[in-house]
Each structure stands twice: as structure tokens, then as C-alpha cells.
């Protein structure tokens, strides 16, 4: 990474709590993040509306190549979702 050391403190708000995952809206409409429970460090039971914070750097492209594996997985998922909608 070229800019991996440029760390920015981010803040967010918990918008969804599931048994295995937590979703967070980044403040300032900077995005949305959904992470498995185990990537959260918590002192209290998780609730929607709680504020969270973490450090992040910018996201850098690794290169121009496309990994066909992921493209094909996405295709399969899209097809299946379309099929489910029809049903």
C-alpha cells in the first residue's frame, strides 16, 4: 500500500444488530460497513443508535486486473436473486 499509514479516525452509528453481525453507517454519509460480531470490541450489549469509532486508511486499488473468481461468484448470486424474485 502506498498510503496505508495515513490513518483517519472514523466514527459511525450502529444501524443494525444481528446475532452474528453489526452494521454501521459512517457519519457524514461516507459509507456503510457491516462486520462480523467478532471484529467488534464491546463493553456493553450492542444496540442500534450506539456510536462507534475506529481507525481507517483510504482504500487503494491493487491493480487493474479483475479476479474472475469473484466476478463469477457475483454473477451466480445475481442470477439466483433474480430467480427468487420471479418466484
Amino acid at each position, binding site marked *: 500500500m502506498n498510503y496505508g499509514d495515513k490513518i483517519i479516525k472514523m466514527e459511525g452509528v450502529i444501524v443494525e444488530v*444481528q446475532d452474528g453481525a453489526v452494521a454501521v453507517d459512517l457519519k457524514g454519509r461516507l459509507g456503510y460497513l457491516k462486520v462480523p*460480531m467478532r471484529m467488534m470490541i464491546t463493553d456493553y450489549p450492542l444496540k442500534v443508535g450506539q456510536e462507534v469509532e475506529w481507525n481507517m486508511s483510504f482504500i487503494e486499488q491493487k491493480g487493474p486486473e479483475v479476479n474472475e473468481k469473484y466476478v463469477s461468484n457475483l454473477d451466480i448470486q445475481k442470477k439466483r436473486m433474480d430467480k427468487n424474485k420471479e418466484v
Partner: protein
Amino acid sequence: MSITAETAKAHANDPAVLCCRREAGTVISVSDLEDPAIFDDLVDSGLLNLDGALTIEQVVGATLKETRDSLQPLTADVLDGVKASSAPAAPAEEAPEEEVAAPVLPAGAPVAAAGGVLKIHIGEGKDIDLEIPVGAIGAAGAVAPGVAGAVAPVAAAAEAAVAGEEVVVRTLTRKHFNITEVKRGPETKIEGTTLYIREGIEKEAVDSQNLVVDLKVDIITPDKYHTYSETVMDVQPIATKEGDSEVGSGVTRVLDGVIMMVTGTDANGVQIGEFGSSEGYLDENIMWGRPGCPEKGEIFIKTQVTIKEGTNMERPGPLAAHAATDHITQEIREVMKKLDESLVVDSEEFKQVRRPGMKKVVIVKEIMGQGAMHDNLLLPVEPVGILGGKPNVDLGNVPVCVSPLELLDGCVHALTCIGPASKEMSRHYWREPLVLEALHDPEVDLAGVILVGSPQINSEKFYVSKRVGMTVEMLGADGAFVTTEGFGNNHIDFAAHHEEIGKRGIPVVGLSFCAVQGALVVGNEYMTAMVDNNKSEAGIENEVLGCNTLCHEDGIRALAMLKDAMLGEDIKKAEKAWNPNVKSTNLELISNVTGKPIELVENEQSLPMSQKRKEKYS
């Protein structure tokens, strides 16, 4: 930030560097010096030059001749009254020392830095640029993979002489039945080496669970390995108890050449356990032969379970997918119970042996307990079954003691967490390498296995780890292993387990996937002996099923390391960043002593790449 007298003593032969600006005439005391633990990073980033620096023991008590700024090394030309060094010559590196020691068995193992803290004190100043590689800071808490050298055969032999006889507590017999073909048929049965699965069983499996809306059974033979699959949730042996025997003793019947594989999505098409899932072509996503994985050549009975939309991350969702699959497995088990003895192709006996007089060790296995797929059913009636199993989340994640044979007999039905490369699937426990190693090692007395869940909230984590400490204390263990799967907040309780056990004076060796991506979140002074389960080339979660799980080679390293620790050998400090060579050096040391070569498992580089990927990446 200045250091304490204690730190100064530990670092007596490390370079002396001022922590703050000091005026001429100052008599140097330890409170004027910086903590040497942070020097590596500072030197790397060019902030600090240690050329000509005297050691801490040399400078304490000397008088500063001229005013020096913070983070300046103390050299002979600025001090009066420098003491002579007690250390032999220049800071003799440890390497030669080790060679000299070779005949006496080199030992000592690298490892985990205990949560290094970077402290920078700026008294006064302007235009100060601090550039410190961030990765390096993170790595201070990280673990260097690694282990130590040798076991001490001499000492062990002497002990063996006084030790009592081996005591066989209980035995477990596994009878193997070979399966070479799996077909669909009008009824579930086994004829010779052919397993038939009843047509239409899918509907019953679906009906057995409210949340399951669809279930497909695919029989994946080796020629079909290159087919697309949803994320692999679990790999399970097909086994059943014979007669009245219970899990962990008596007789278990198991099918060879075939395994159950649970896969699935929710009705919206989202993978169950959607993070870092391993969907894709099976042969590109499975690390063959890992304890938890299929072997190349085995037939998979693969269920593709579809659960109600939106339940993939709720507790009942993944459990329903497992229960529906188990409906099929259970029908096979019923058939197996009636199989004729003549079909047994192999029989192996596991003995739970206690070795009084030997060092008593326990294995603490941290299993996931944050909820949803982070859950395990403990002690079901059938090996890796559902019925009778209690979710460790419902048990409050408190420690549950099981015998090594219970563990090897499928007492853990893993709902398996996420992170395909580092999760321990049900089959992993069935073939748990560390338990097997410890059980078969004549130099240690394996007292048992403690399963402890990893809850979500910190206070609960400390609650359970205090129980772990107390349990290990009561067992009177001489040493303990702590293992964990995956990475994330489970490393907080992983560290707490080390502390709880370590502070009772019991040596402890940790096993976890760490490398680059799984660098430990926290550390403490007891986390000195650590074995990294990483096998991936880049040290990351590479989405290849089972790649970074505990293997035989890690079990050997951990056992050697714990023996060293129990004998009071020092373990070398970890390197500050992940260095895979530590592992190979340690393995070499071990095999030099034992005289047995250690075969290393392959990593993801051995898997086929699709043609398209090949064109792009080669």
C-alpha cells in the same frame, strides 16, 4: 516516557537513550531513559541512531557533560563517570551462543511481544516530524510465529525412570467402513461399499426445520470437484455409536471415503456466514487434507440449504441448516448401526492414557460463542450429531471439561464461525492434531481438554477466562495450551486465558492464526510462547477452507515449546514483524533433536488456478 528501575534492570545491556531533554550536569538515573522496547521501530524509521550508544547499566549514575535532547542516545563523549559494562564484549548476538549450546540442546523460542506500547514524549518543541511505520506498531502486539527448540530427552528420560506406570483411563475404538460409491435409491442403505441415500429425503429434511425453505443434496465425486458451491459451512465425519456406548468411549463406527458437507444461503441468496465465505469452485477453495477438511479423493454428500431470508446472521438460521443436514446424516447413522462386522476394513483403538509423574498438561480450546454461526453444540448423543448437544452460547460460554477421547469422538458439533481459512470445522475436532500429539507423547501427562466459549462482551470474556484460570489451577497442571480459531475479538479472551493461567505460575503456550492479518489485538506479559497456525503465503485470511488451521506441525511445535517452558527455558523475544522463517527454524531445531523429519503441509499455492486467473497472474 521514562522507565522504571525494574525495566532498566531487564534492559541493562540495551542502549541508553534519553527520554526527555536533560540539561548539562544531570546525573543520569533510570527515570531519564527511554524504554528500549520501542527502539526497533524508531531506528527503522530513521528517528533514532544508536551508533556509539552506551548501555543502560553503563550510564546510570554518570553525569551529563552537555545538554541533550530527548531521543538522543547517550555516548561516551557526553558523559562523565561511565561504568564498565558487565556484558561480554559487544552485544553478542544470540545466534553464536546457540551454536555453542548445541550439544546441550538449544532451546528458546521466539515469540509474542507483550502488547508493546509506543510512547513518545515531547517536552517542548516545534516542527517535530514523527514518522513511524504504522504496520510496525501493530506488529508489536502481534505474534511472531514460532517456537522453540528442543525437548530435553535427558531430563525426560530421568523422569521416566521414576515415573509410575501408564494408566489407561478409557478406550475408544473406531471401526472403519469403506465407501467407494454414493448413489440415490429408494431407501437409505449400505451394500458392500456403496451407500444409497433415499430419494425424497430432502423434503423431510426441509420439513423438519421451520426456517429451512429448500435443501438440495449433491453427491460430489472427485471428477466433480470443479463445480460451483455455496460457502462451505461445515465438514463432518459420518459416524455413529455402537450399542450403548457413549461419545468418548466404547465403539464408534465411521464411514471412510465419504463426508457430509453443509453449505447454504438464505432465500435472498446471501451466504450463511456471509463474511469471507468460500463460495466458488470447490477444488480452488478447499485446502485438502487439513484436519477439518476433506481429503482429496473423498466423496462429499453436500447439502445446499436455503434458509428463510434474513436469518443467515441470526442464531436459529445456521443451526437450522445444520439440523436439516443432520436429518440425512441421522438416517445414514441408523443404517450404519446395523452393518455387518464383516464390512469393517480397519479398526483403531485410542487409549486415554494418564502418565503419573510426568508433567501434567491441559489443552484449553477456545471455541466461538459470539452468537449465530459463532456457536457449537457440545456433547451430542451421536458423534457430531445435533440431538442432545447443548449450544455453548446457552451454557454461558463457561469452561466445559471433556476427555481427549470425547473430543476426538465428535463431542463438538461446530456451527463454524467465519473466516474459512482459520475456522475449525466439526471434522477438525475429530482429528485434532494437538490432542493426538499430546495424548501419544510419553513425556507428558495429558489431563484433559477444556472447551471455553468466546462471548461477545468484554466483561463476559473476563468472566469465562477467570473460570478457565481456576479450572487449570484446580487440575494442578504443570503446563497448558490455549488454542483459538479465527481472529478478532476472541483474541481478547485468548490473551486473558494466558494471563489467568500464567499468573498462577503455570507455563502456557498459545496457538492461533496471527501472521499479518490476525495480529493480536492485545497482549500481556504471559503471552511469551506462541505458535502461529498460519500457512498462507501472505499471512492473510485467504478464503481457502481450512488453510490456516492448527495442523500436525503446529502441534509438534507447541508441544516442544511447552516442554521447554515447563523446564524453565527462556523463550526468545518475538521479532517485531511477522517472519515466517521463525517457524521453519524452530521446526528444524525440533527435528534435529528428535531425529524425525517433520513434514510440512502445503498451502494455497498448491491449488489449481482457473485458466483465466492463470492468464492474469502468471
